């Protein structure tokens, strides 16, 4: 009985202390590339919100689809209007956990594995990808690279532009997070 009470007390003490290890950014960068012999498409969103909780080993991302900038204005319009339908599904989210040890005391690059659920175009899909976390002097820098398939998110590509859009979209993530106080 006493042990239980002690345990609860211990948890109550530890959890608030542990949750202080949260790192956040509002200027994370996510780029995606579609390479085909017909056309190369590249878009970048540099207003990605991301948070990493080192003690819980969780992370989350949130971004507005309209913030993806393309080289061609018309491509951007079609991306929002016809493909991701950003009027109906304005945000894309990721919520997940990671495995791998990250020691804040040792500034270096750590290889981790991230798994979780991406929400895009209103469709949820779980993914798992290798990633890196670097402990730097003023925070945490994370990178990841993975492929997504448009059809997994109910994004249909009409036959007439089929040859211009890659089957697999190469997604690259780079975030530099600062500790939250």
């Amino acid at each position, binding site marked *: *009985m006493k042990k239980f009470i002690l345990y*609860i007390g211990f948890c109550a003490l530890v959890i608030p202390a542990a949750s202080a290890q949260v790192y956040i950014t509002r200027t994370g960068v996510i780029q995606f590339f579609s390479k085909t012999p017909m056309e190369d498409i590249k878009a970048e969103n540099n207003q990605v919100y991301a*948070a990493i909780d080192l003690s819980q080993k969780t992370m989350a991302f949130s971004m507005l689809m309209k913030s993806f900038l393309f080289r*061609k*204005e018309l491509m951007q319009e079609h991306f929002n209007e016809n493909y991701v339908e950003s009027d109906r599904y304005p945000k894309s989210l990721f*919520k997940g956990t990671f495995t791998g040890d990250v020691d804040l005391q040792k500034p270096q690059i750590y290889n981790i594995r991230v798994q979780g659920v991406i929400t895009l175009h209103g469709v949820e899909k779980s993914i798992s990808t290798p990633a890196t976390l670097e402990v730097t002097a003023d925070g945490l820098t994370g990178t990841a690279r993975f492929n997504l398939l448009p059809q997994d998110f109910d994004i249909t590509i009409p036959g007439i532009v089929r040859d211009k859009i890659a089957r697999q979209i190469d997604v690259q993530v780079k975030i530099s997070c600062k500790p939250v106080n």
Partner: protein
Amino acid sequence: MKYYALFFFLCTCFGKIAISQDSSLLHMLEDSMMTDKQGGRVTATFKGTHIINTQSVETPAKGVLLFMIMHRFGKINEGAYEFFGLDNATMRMGFDYGLTDELTAGIGRSTFQKTYDGYLKGKLLRQSEGAGKRIPVSVTALAGIAYTSLRYSDKPYLNAKYRTSYTVQLLVARKLSRNLSLQLSPAWLHYNLVPAAVDKNDVFALGMGGRMKITKRSSINVEYNYLPGNQVNSFKVYNSFSAGFDIETGGHVFQVHVTNSQGMVEPLFLGRTTGSWGKGDIYFGFNISRSFNLSRKH
């Protein structure tokens, strides 16, 4: 019993903590996103720079050259001998260039009365929604000049001054939903030369138009241009009414339609539409546009 109760309490307690920890990260992001979020501009009110004959609020982006062919066959009521108008055709070839994202310069040449036209089109307001500043409508101003170069052998004294007409038009549009957009376009026209003294040199017209998307890449377009009476009196003019269908594929917009106007420049279709729907003076036609990126963004 006590132990069970405690165990249960502990489980719910931890469960709650675990859940809140898991989603709090995302909630934290969402909260900060909400406070930062600004009003987003509404895009793609229309697919093309023209609803059918009337210009829409859309302009090409900076550095984009838009090549457009507008084509009208003859009247459907010309009968089988003229293959219901398909034997005859008038067309307008035009180039629009986006000087900035807001300002466009355009030139065109119509076979109808060998008319050259040029215009400037500028976005004044852009519809915005969301948490930031909201603007209910997009407003684009159009200032155009048209020059008719057709030779009149009986009136060789008609010099450039007489052959020129001007258009000033305000295009006010609102995207009401993802599918429905409506535009109101009051226009003021000035003809340097009118056929008779009873005709006004300054003519006012009120255009209305809209599009309803039926799939992601196609829409039904309708436009009606009301010409108030007692402005053009020496010959019978009609209000211009057009209906059509838009298909968009990549950088192309393809529009097919029927209209009672043969001219494709404002002074010709707003104030000089002589075709009547009732009599079957209906022109079948299409517009095709292709955009070329001449300069790279970023």
